[in-house]
């Protein structure tokens, strides 16, 4: 990757989506929504893995191409970059419950790339980022409400 293209790279995120045993209901809806994000230029999918953890905690990883009929995801699969290494599998699977299956998705936030580039050109550097869980927002609201009630 050239220096210029590195400068234009958007932030890269990942999610691990777990499907507890017996809870999966794959209708193609997830694939459609993912492709919509790709087609709109919002994200670029970098890598996908499917993990399974048996009741004894043993983990297996599968490539997307090993899933079988990919349908709409076939074009996407051809563009994957295989960023994840074998040693990442155990680290990612640490969050999984025994008996579950999980999808790991790595993507570049194309929507954020122009802003990130502008920030870098302006002399800024990223020193922190993160995600605020909904539970933390609820806790904050509850605390706020409690203070309001006390003040009445």
């Amino acid at each position, binding site marked *: 990757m050239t220096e210029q293209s590195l400068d234009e790279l958007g932030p890269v995120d990942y999610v691990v989506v777990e499907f507890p045993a017996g809870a999966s209901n794959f209708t193609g809806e997830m694939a459609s929504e993912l492709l919509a994000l790709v087609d709109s230029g919002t994200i670029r999918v970098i890598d996908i893995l499917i993990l399974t953890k048996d009741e004894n905690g043993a983990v297996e990883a599968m490539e997307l191409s090993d899933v079988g009929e990919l349908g709409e995801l076939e074009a996407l699969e051809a563009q994957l970059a295989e960023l*994840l290494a074998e040693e990442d599998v155990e680290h990612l699977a*640490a969050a999984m419950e025994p008996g579950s299956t999980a999808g790991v998705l790595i993507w570049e936030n194309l929507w954020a790339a122009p802003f990130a580039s502008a920030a870098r050109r302006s002399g800024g550097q990223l020193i922190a980022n993160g995600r605020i869980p909904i539970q933390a927002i609820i806790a904050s609201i509850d605390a706020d409400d409690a203070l309001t009630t006390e003040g009445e």
Partner: protein
Amino acid sequence: MPLRPARRGRVGVIRAPIAKTAVVAKAVTPGAAPVARTAVVAAAVKPGRRRRI
């Protein structure tokens, strides 16, 4: 693990075992109480809301 050979022997990008996050679905799943919760959270992040400091 039937991973492609290119994934073997490389340094990973996930540096340590990850912890399970709180299951957000339980906080926002439609139902009697959670629906109210969803509305409250939506109100908390609506445009124009100001902090009280």
